[in-house]
């Protein structure tokens, strides 16, 4: 790598700061919303977002130019959050991904039956998603946020959470099912449903 010999220290600093502004600060609203999902509290979320940018700025030299800055900021944010919560090493409970896949299919049939097959095409569900996520147990929520909101792979999420990929998969499937259940109930309460065309549904049991 060649560095122009004539660049002063102040100029180098100026360049770094311009880069930080263009690359990192533009993600402020996204980081703020991410912090809000993690903390479930506006005031803690703003503190966390501020601390994230401060940390990012002080460690800007470790950011690899051309890589995904949004993701890098989310990682910093999550690490800061986990440190304050001290819950990274949560004990794994017994989980069964197959049961959750079956549950997910049943939820879909149930939703389709009451006219909610296009529920998730609605643009007004954003606040309901956030409230739904707030209500889910932390280990499931962490997996859903990492993979579905942040866009991590199963393997990346496993590394972040310090658990095997199979555990991430189980928690993700459970978390999605719980979230869908909440959203379907919300839609029902809001009267989004259409009455079934046929008689009563068969005796499927949702767990």
């Amino acid at each position, binding site marked *: 790598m060649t560095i122009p010999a004539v660049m002063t220290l102040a100029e180098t600093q*100026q360049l770094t*700061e311009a880069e930080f502004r263009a690359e990192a600060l533009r993600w402020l*609203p996204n980081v703020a919303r991410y912090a809000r999902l993690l903390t479930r509290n506006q005031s803690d979320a703003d503190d966390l977002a501020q601390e994230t940018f401060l940390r990012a700025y002080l460690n800007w030299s470790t950011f690899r130019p051309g890589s995904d800055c949004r993701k890098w900021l989310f990682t910093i944010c999550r690490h800061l959050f986990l440190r304050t919560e001290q819950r990274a090493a949560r004990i794994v409970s017994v989980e069964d991904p197959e049961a959750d896949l079956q549950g*997910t*299919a049943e939820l879909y049939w149930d939703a389709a039956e009451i006219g909610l097959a296009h529920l*998730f*095409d609605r643009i007004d569900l954003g606040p309901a998603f956030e409230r739904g996520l707030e209500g889910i147990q932390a280990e499931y929520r962490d997996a859903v946020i990492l993979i579905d*909101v942040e866009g991590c792979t199963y393997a990346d999420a496993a590394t972040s959470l310090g658990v095997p990929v199979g555990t991430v998969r189980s928690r993700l499937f459970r978390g999605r099912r719980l979230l869908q259940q909440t959203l379907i109930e919300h839609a029902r309460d809001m009267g989004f449903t259409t009455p079934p065309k046929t008689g009563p549904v068969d005796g499927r049991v949702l767990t």
Partner: protein
Amino acid sequence: MTEHTDIPCEHVIRSVWDYLDDEIDAERKERIRLHLELCDHCRDQYTFEGAFLRSMSRLLDDDIDHAESLRGRVEAALIAHGFPKTT
């Protein structure tokens, strides 16, 4: 619901998340894709779950209502650590 593919609906439905998350090997992915082309029943559920995942991936895209005050606060903290003021 279809006899035209080599993979039963039950297996296709069980792979819904692995497929949509692209956490599946290429050969299985292709078999499922072919199945979905022919089977309305499975395709409807995949469409539903896909829309669910897209909704979540958009959760962070909306602006926040207090963006300006938070931006001011963050910039003030940065300036205290040597970040230059905007001109």
